[in-house]
């Protein structure tokens, strides 16, 4: 009986140690229309054509940069998607002007309504990002900021964390100021 008790206690101790070692997988929260994933936010999907995005946000885009400046193929527009303000990044596809169109390559928002599928959003810190995306490739570091017309330097307050998908073709981007998320977005990874 005494031996049995000793074994029982030993088994209990071993079991509890094992439980401690096992890391709880991060729980996903219920998806909403503002959940940000590597594909976009709600109906706004990366890769969409400008005409389709216009229908969703009910707004006509004026790509001034591309129209006014020859050689420019990128443009940014601000829009309202449901209750959130978003910056939409477009890129012209195809060199042929007759068949070319603008493709949505990225979007960024500062809305507190917008969170990732793990509940990471505005106001969270870096460790809140790193925990759930533990198994994903990540690059992070201070952002560059313009000091004057000719000089750029690494910022002392601005920081970004980029969580890539396994194919390294899309990423969720978190912009932090003074160690807290101030905006988040999603984009295509270019040139890699």
């Amino acid at each position, binding site marked *: 009986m005494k031996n049995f008790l000793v074994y029982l206690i030993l088994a209990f101790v071993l079991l509890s140690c094992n439980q401690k070692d096992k890391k709880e997988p991060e729980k996903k929260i219920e998806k909403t229309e503002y959940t940000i994933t590597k594909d976009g936010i709600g109906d706004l999907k990366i890769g969409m054509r400008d005409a389709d995005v216009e229908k969703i946000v009910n707004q006509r885009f004026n790509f001034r940069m591309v129209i006014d400046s020859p050689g420019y193929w990128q443009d940014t527009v601000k829009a309202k998607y449901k209750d959130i303000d978003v910056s939409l990044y477009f890129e012209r596809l195809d060199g042929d002007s007759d068949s070319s169109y603008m493709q949505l390559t990225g979007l960024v928002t500062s809305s507190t309504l917008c969170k990732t599928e793990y509940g990471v959003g505005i106001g969270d810190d870096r460790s809140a990002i*790193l925990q759930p995306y533990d*198994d994903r*490739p*990540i*690059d*992070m*570091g*201070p*952002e*560059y900021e313009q000091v004057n017309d000719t000089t*750029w330097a*690494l910022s002392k307050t601005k920081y*970004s964390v*980029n969580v890539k998908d396994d194919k390294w073709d899309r990423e969720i981007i978190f912009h932090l100021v003074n160690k807290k998320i101030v905006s988040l977005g999603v984009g295509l*990874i270019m*040139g*890699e």
Partner: protein
Amino acid sequence: MKKMILFTCFSALVFFATAQKPDHLVSFEGIDELQIGIGKAEIEKLLTTRILFKHIGIDEQYTETFKVKYKGTDMEIDLMGSDQKTTRLDGIRTTSPLFKTAEGIGIGTDQETIINTYEKHLLIITKEYITLVDIDNIHSSIVFRMQNKKVVGIGTEPTAAFRDRE
């Protein structure tokens, strides 16, 4: 006069102590004297051994990796070039716990410590590697090979593609 001599001696001591690089240092430039970019002849002198190519200058391959001993420690070096004269040291790695960065990061250090230590640097984190990018020259980096979130290997290598952060 005595004070003057004492002061001079003290200054000289401080100068040499700060100017001398510590032994077993892993930096963006390389490991100890094995600096990225040095030629084959210099590498052979430091390793006190001859390097015999199997590919460089023989076939189409212009990079070769060699297992070598440096200061009694096993190392792996990458050489790059098209012939004996142009070949340069392109990468170097070790699993020895003797070798550390200036901040004391080496074999056994965990991921969190690396992230916190290099807060002002650019880091690329994957399951197998953490790459610390030189902010003054994004083409060179210190690479930590990771296993179970601990460093098991350390070295200096050219940086893999890094996102434009502007």
